[in-house]
């Protein structure tokens, strides 16, 4: 009898520990959420002049809904552009061929993600296709630089007009 209670006690302990791990998996972590793997997705590529702070595993969304994930970011040494590979869920298989991809920032300081905007073509993107219309990330330093450059140019051109 005593060994029985002992074994029940240890069994309950192990079960409680596994249940806690299960809860951490399903309820606390993202395991139950958006998951994507080789079989459930197809791959698209997009080239950007500058990806800014985009990271691998960043979300790919369309109309605000996540439909895929960034799986790789490389530099193409022929064009010197960033080549981003996107894994898109198989069920979203009717993205028009002339869709455009842009890199946006979630909120003012949030992380960067790729937003797809549908085009009007009747033909759809297939596995391995490239999205041709892209818009790079906004790099704050470049914008400030352009702004200052513009201001400086104004300052030079105005006296010239007076003469």
């Amino acid at each position: 009898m005593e060994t029985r209670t002992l074994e029940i006690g240890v069994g309950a302990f192990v079960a409680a520990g596994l249940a806690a791990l299960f809860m951490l998996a399903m309820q606390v972590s993202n395991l139950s959420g958006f998951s994507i793997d080789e079989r459930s997705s197809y791959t698209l590529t997009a080239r950007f002049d500058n990806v800014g702070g985009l990271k691998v595993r960043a979300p790919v969304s369309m109309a605000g809904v996540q439909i895929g994930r960034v799986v790789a970011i490389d530099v193409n040494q022929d064009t010197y552009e960033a080549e981003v590979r996107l894994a898109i869920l198989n069920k979203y298989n009717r993205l028009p061929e002339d869709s455009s991809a842009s890199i946006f920032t979630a909120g003012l300081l949030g992380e960067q993600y790729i937003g797809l905007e549908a085009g009007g073509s009747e033909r759809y993107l297939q596995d391995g296709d490239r999205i041709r219309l892209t818009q790079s990330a906004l790099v704050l330093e470049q914008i400030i630089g352009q702004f200052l450059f513009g201001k400086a140019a104004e300052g030079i051109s105005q006296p010239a007009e007076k003469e």
Partner: protein
Amino acid sequence: MTQWLQYLGRTALGFLERLGRAHILLLRMLLGLPSLLPRFRLVIVQMRSVGVLSLVIIVVSGVFVGMVLGLQGYNTLVDFGSEQSLGVVVALTLVRELGPVVAALLFAGRAGSALTAEIGLMKATEQLSGMEMMAVDPLRRVLAPRLLAGFFSMPLLAAIFTAVGVLGGYFVGVGLLGVDSGAFWSQMQAKVDWYEDVLNGVIKSLVFGFVASWIAVFEGYDADPTSEGVSRATTRTVVHTSLAVLGLDFVLTALMFGDL
């Protein structure tokens, strides 16, 4: 001057000698593990005293740690209007750091000290020598099952601690302070990664469990066979385990999450 040097030298040599003995003991226990498999019951019996009996303190502390995290996190986050992120704060803190570390510290106090005292008293009352006389290896019969039980129990205890802590944070944040329940869970799920965060926490608790039970078993086996020696060994177990856990935690965190 020479006396002082001699004292320093003796301390250093003694430390190295103990370290060496601890490793030899560990090696002999690991070599004895295969013979433990047919008698796995020994491990289960130890898992009861090491794991099941530690459950109460783990669950109660987990609830309170989670509740305090919820309360303090809320007070800070509400200033920035981002109390929706309370779930992320509570879950990430518990999963990555507090769960494994605090559970290991409690484990050292609750189970490690008991292991040391038990083995030390066995040695003091010459039960261990008695076993050797009967050609039973006390390393395989007494020490190895306890080491293995601690190694198995610790991750389970840490997982329970973390899960209960998250529920405690949920109780305070959503139940008492009025954070939105959906935001609490969905933000948590968006930011806590299974591999990056949860599994690394489990790896941490495995390491801590191993180190804590190793220290406890070694201190017991190495204790002076007197009542004073056993009491000193028990104290040393708690102190050394706490130091080892906190130090290792920094190293593991730097390896897993840091860019050092």
